[in-house]
């Protein structure tokens, strides 16, 4: 089974291209900052310099090195994506598994919770939170995204769990004296592992998009540089009108590439895991 998945994985162009792009960008984001000695917000050079030898992506209105910002921004963006997607995935799984497996009143309560969070006007909540809490870090942003994005994952995991819990092998595990937690972890979850992976990838990409949107409307972290914040700054400081394309093209392309690549990889993975899509 696993070998088969691997067999198809290394032959799936979509997966390879998607994962390749992600890995390259991730590599830049993870390793890149170690080669940049100054903080990305430092005013290091002449203002508004086009890309060139000294500053690979040029400088912005303040004379900040945009390559340094891009590299650090990639790191933050990945971090928020992974953290936000991770938190959402974990909550979604806990809620989905519990609701789907336990059923009954636990299901009803969790379902209600899911629906409440689902219809929550996220943006409005964020505005209010922002007004009262004030401090905004990348971690808090990820936490917020995680805390608001899990419902659809929980719903689909619940549905899948629901259909799996009626299977004979689950009954058999119960007949073996295995407890609920272990049945979920070891009988049900492994059956959905590919689905859970796909869910996480979608949440990951979704978190990046949401984070970028939040950044862009001014609800981004204030202690970090992210690709969304770069875009926001470029927009606010009229980079477009001033012709400073090197300020907004790289972060815009970065976000598009990451999310696009995640999507392509997701489609690829889907084909790897799903024999029906794999067929011809």
């Amino acid at each position, binding site marked *: 089974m696993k070998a088969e998945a691997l067999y198809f994985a290394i032959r799936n162009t979509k997966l390879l291209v998607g994962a390749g792009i992600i890995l390259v960008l991730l590599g830049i984001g993870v390793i890149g900052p170690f080669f940049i000695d100054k903080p990305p917000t430092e005013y290091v050079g002449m203002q508004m310099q086009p890309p060139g030898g000294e500053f690979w992506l040029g400088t912005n209105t303040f004379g900040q090195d945009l390559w340094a910002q891009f590299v650090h921004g990639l790191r933050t963006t990945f971090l928020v994506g992974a953290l936000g997607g991770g938190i959402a995935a974990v909550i979604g799984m806990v809620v989905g598994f519990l609701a789907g497996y336990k059923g009954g009143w636990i299901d009803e309560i969790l379902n209600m919770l899911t629906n409440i969070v689902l219809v929550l006007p996220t943006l409005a909540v964020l505005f209010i939170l922002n007004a009262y809490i004030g401090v905004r870090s990348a971690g808090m942003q990820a936490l917020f995204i995680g805390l608001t994005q899990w419902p659809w994952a929980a719903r689909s995991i619940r549905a899948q769990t629901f259909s799996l819990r009626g299977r004979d092998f689950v009954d058999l595990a*119960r007949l073996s004296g295995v407890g609920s937690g272990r049945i979920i972890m070891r009988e049900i979850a492994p059956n959905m592992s590919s689905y859970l992976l796909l869910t996480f990838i979608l949440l990951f990409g979704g978190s990046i998009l949401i984070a970028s949107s939040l950044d862009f409307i001014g609800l981004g972290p204030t202690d970090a540089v992210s690709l969304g914040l770069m875009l926001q700054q470029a927009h606010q400081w009229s980079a477009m009108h001033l012709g400073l394309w090197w300020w907004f093209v790289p972060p815009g392309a970065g976000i598009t590439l990451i999310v696009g690549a995640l999507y392509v990889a997701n489609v690829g993975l889907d084909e790897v895991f799903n024999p029906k899509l794999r067929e011809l």
Partner: protein
Amino acid sequence: MLKLDGVTKVYRIGAFGGQTMTAVDEAGFEIKPGEVVSLIGESGSGKSTIGKMVLRLLPPTSGTISIDGRDVRQMGKRDYYRKVQGVFQDPFSSYNPVFKADRVFAMIREVYFKGVPDKEWTAKIEAALDAVRLSPGAVLNKFPHQLSGGQLQRLLIARALLLDIEYLVADEIISMLDASTRIDVLNLLADLKQRGLGVLFITHDLALGNYISERTVVLHKGRIVEYGPTDAVFEQPEHAYTRKLLASVPQLHTKWEDAS
């Protein structure tokens, strides 16, 4: 002796559980050690619900299930499952498709035989496989889809045997098997009673029930309509439903129109 006494199961249905549906109504019968009891009924008769209640996968709404006079609800589930085990209809869905088939043994070991050394355990498995006439090399370390339905069902019976069980619930365990192999599994079940095992054999196929059981319970819409020694039930059915059922069974050498 495994005894059911006035066992009833009522399901709540409808959008808000406002309606009820009685799946099993005051069922009572017993299984003695070394005896196969057939529980015969058509779909919706409640026969699987009874199987699940005996296996404590569903709680009865009322009535008691007892072993040797002791209400099973007073027993811890782990202890209970050492005595009572089950095998289900679909061999393929009884196995978690992502794991190897012999994981069903490992699961038992984890819970009941933690301290048993590997060697002893291997010997135990081999003995159990031998009892179901499987060769270890043919079935161990394989994924479910690499094995046939007959092999899988036998493997599940071997799993139950590891626990020195007293009672086995066999819920339609051969209906998904091919004709060429189902009789062997049936024979195996019949052999188990020689080991003193009590078997609840749930089926819709009267011929199969007739083949191996000592006593037969006929279930219709949740109620027991006929209960007695198998020969008596098949040769002198008392209830009209049983007679209708018998008349509908396709016989290899007799055509319906000839019989009537």
